[in-house]
């Protein structure tokens, strides 16, 4: 039987990649373990190894093809005596199975390795299909929109601000030569050089403090944490130095600095890499906390954050990086920090979310519409300072509120919103406020438990129906 060689998944979050190079040609004999091709993803370059002996019968996906879905047959391996014709390629590539991508990777012998040596600078990062979002009143009507991934939007924001202000520089682990652990700083080293794109050792507490000192001394650092989970090492510098200096010095000197990086759970990386810190940082006077969902917000708010004279916590999300949204084509697109965006107007219930939480809400909307529930969705975008007036005004209209976030449930951002709403709009509420959060456990590793630990669309639908008494 001819064996199909499938596009492997490097990580559970990988949906597609680029087949960059074939190392074997049709007709070549291979043995188990031979590297037959190279693929590139948003994170790394990966070798595809043969798992069986045989002859490469037919190459189904040409070198250089982008956006090859995981589990697509990329070649056929012939056993002794088989012909290439016998191995008819399937018309449709098998669909990616979200539950078992890791197993697929194992089957094909895919092996991750460091991308630094292999990933060309211009390597295009695959993107997920575009998500449509309601028009933002901060964007002039008629503006041309360009489909852009969150990843590209963040990179563009940094590049534009670095072109605009010579004091802006970016530092962190793997931001330069490696082009960013998640390829957010792709191309910046080539454009701005190693003076302004600074690779640091793995020393989060240290380089966060170095950033604070550079900010005090007059520069505008962007400090990338490979993930905010690692910023736990640096939290003394973020809070005791960055956030408090302006106040302690009686207004003499502050720290205009942006701490940014992916925050919260990705997929299957376990408890130490899967925590959402929005509620933690939102408690600190002196910090501003931004957690965007769309690419447009990521760009407009990151540009605003870099210009802001205060220390900013900019919480991104690995799963959102590859998602595509419309971004306005404007020379200088800067959004206001501290202003929520009404994602969808509605009259029956207010749903408040932000960042990755919005993905559950957006999916729930379709189901709620079927049930005749007209939900108003508010994307907070900034957690601190929080645009509570927009939330309160909406609740006064709808009388019902559900909040959605991935963080832990106790002392969550939603708890704060619920408290403020019951104070400010007590007489308007027709139902208790429901706050949806992650479950009260360290993130479990197993896929089924992880899924259970995170909020889900069903919970959002259920909560909305509950507060609507439906």
């Amino acid at each position, binding site marked *: 039987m001819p064996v199909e060689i499938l596009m492997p998944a490097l990580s559970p979050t990988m949906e597609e990649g680029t087949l960059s190079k074939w190392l074997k040609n049709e007709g070549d004999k291979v043995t188990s373990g031979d590297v037959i091709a190279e693929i590139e993803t948003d994170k790394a370059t990966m070798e595809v190894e043969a798992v069986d002996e045989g002859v490469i019968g037919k190459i189904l996906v040409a070198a250089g093809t982008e956006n090859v879905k995981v589990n697509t047959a990329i070649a056929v391996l012939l056993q002794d005596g088989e012909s290439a014709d016998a191995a008819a390629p399937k018309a449709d590539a098998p669909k990616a199975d979200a539950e078992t991508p890791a197993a697929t990777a194992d089957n094909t012998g895919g092996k991750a390795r460091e991308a630094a040596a292999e990933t060309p600078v211009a390597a295009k990062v695959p993107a997920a299909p575009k998500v449509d979002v309601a028009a933002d009143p901060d964007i002039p009507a008629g503006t041309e929109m360009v489909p852009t991934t969150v990843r590209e939007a963040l990179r563009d924001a940094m590049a534009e601000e670095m072109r605009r202000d010579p004091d802006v*520089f970016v530092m962190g682990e793997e931001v330069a030569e490696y082009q960013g652990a998640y390829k957010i700083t792709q191309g910046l080293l080539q454009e701005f050089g190693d003076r302004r794109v600074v690779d640091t050792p793995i020393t989060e507490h240290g380089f966060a403090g170095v950033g604070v000192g550079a*900010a005090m001394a007059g*520069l505008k650092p962007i400090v990338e944490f490979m993930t905010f989970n690692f910023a736990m090492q640096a939290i*003394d510098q973020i809070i005791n130095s960055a956030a408090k200096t302006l106040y302690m*010095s009686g207004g003499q000197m502050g720290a205009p600095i942006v701490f940014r990086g992916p925050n919260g759970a990705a997929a299957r990386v376990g408890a130490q890499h899967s925590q959402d810190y929005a509620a933690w940082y939102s408690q600190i006077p002196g910090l501003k906390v931004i957690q965007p969902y769309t690419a447009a917000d990521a760009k407009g708010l990151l540009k605003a954050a870099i210009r802001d004279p205060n220390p900013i916590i900019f919480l991104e999300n690995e799963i959102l990086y590859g998602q595509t949204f419309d971004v306005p084509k404007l020379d200088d697109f800067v959004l206001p920090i501290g202003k929520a965006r009404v994602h969808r107007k509605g009259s029956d219930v207010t749903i408040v979310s932000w960042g990755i939480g919005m993905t559950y809400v957006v999916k729930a909307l379709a189901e709620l519409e079927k049930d005749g529930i007209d939900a108003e969705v508010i994307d907070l975008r900034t957690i601190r300072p929080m645009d509570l007036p927009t939330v309160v005004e909406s609740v006064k209209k709808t009388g019902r509120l559900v909040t959605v976030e991935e963080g832990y449930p106790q002392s969550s951002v939603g708890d704060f919103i619920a408290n403020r709403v019951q104070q400010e709009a007590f007489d308007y509420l027709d139902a208790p406020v429901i706050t949806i959060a992650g479950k009260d456990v360290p993130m479990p590793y197993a896929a089924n438990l992880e899924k259970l630990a995170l909020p889900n669309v069903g919970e959002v639908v259920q909560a909305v129906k509950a507060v609507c008494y439906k």
Partner: protein
Amino acid sequence: MTLTANSHLAELYRTMRRIRTFEERVGELFVRGQSAGSMLHLSIGEESSAAGVCAEMKPQDSFTTHHRGHGIFLARGADPKRMMAEIGGKESGYCHGKGGSMHIADMALGHLGANAIVGGGIPAVVGAGLSSKYLKQDSVSVAFFGDGAMQQGILYESMNMAALWGLPVLFVCINNQYGMGTRIDQATRNTAFDQRARAFGLNGVVVNGLDVEEVRDAARWLIDEARAGKPGFLSVEVYRFFGHARMDKSPYRAEAEETEGRKKDPVLFARAKLIESGLESEAALDALDREIAAEMDATIDFTVESQAPALSSMFRDVYAVGEPEPESVRARIDRVLAREIV
């Protein structure tokens, strides 16, 4: 009185005497009914470190200190009146009463802040050094900290980056033998701290803090080297004459040890050296001491006469610009109870 014009030692003595007298006056704030915090950390016995290093810094150089940093700031040219007023929590203080003894800062003098987290102020000087190199400024940044910080990881993260990037940075450990109540040999096996710095690729020097001129000479070489791109480390060996903070009577150390330790007095040592060498007369130094005493007495009067910060200043300077002040608790309660429309 006039000091001999070319007497560098006399200037160092003057700096050290001003530090000591200032700190002796700090305790008097309480006597005068001022609400100074109880966390006041005196550097009496350690004045040579501040005076010797700061004498070699240039006006464009910046620094951070630990919680025991009054002396360093004075040696860099601070106004003792505004310092004392800050310690007294007054509006006329350097930080308008919002920082206090442990969080004093002044941009104009390059003071990037006292930091009361042990080791917390150290990485900022690496950042300032990075900034200096980035902006091609000819400035060095100096971190002052105690021997307690020698056991903090952040010091080594900072040293590593300073050496890696060749930054104009000097790390100064004021080794007063005690981290709060724990003697240094009970905190670490190897107290040859210069070895640690050299292991990271820095210049490393240990100097006896009894003689301020030795401190100055070591600092001169290290700062020159740092300015040229090789960061350095200096450990100044001194003895903390008094307890960790105002309320600490040092029950953890023997009286005999304290008596012996207090013999290592850099102020008296410099005074004797000035007289023995014929650079200054005893009478001239007595007159100088009286002049300094009067200057520092005035800091107490200034503080007592200064106003506490206005209550309305509480929410000021949480954010740099454009932040609305949060509403008062009272106003919010009123509004909530009235169920007012937002």
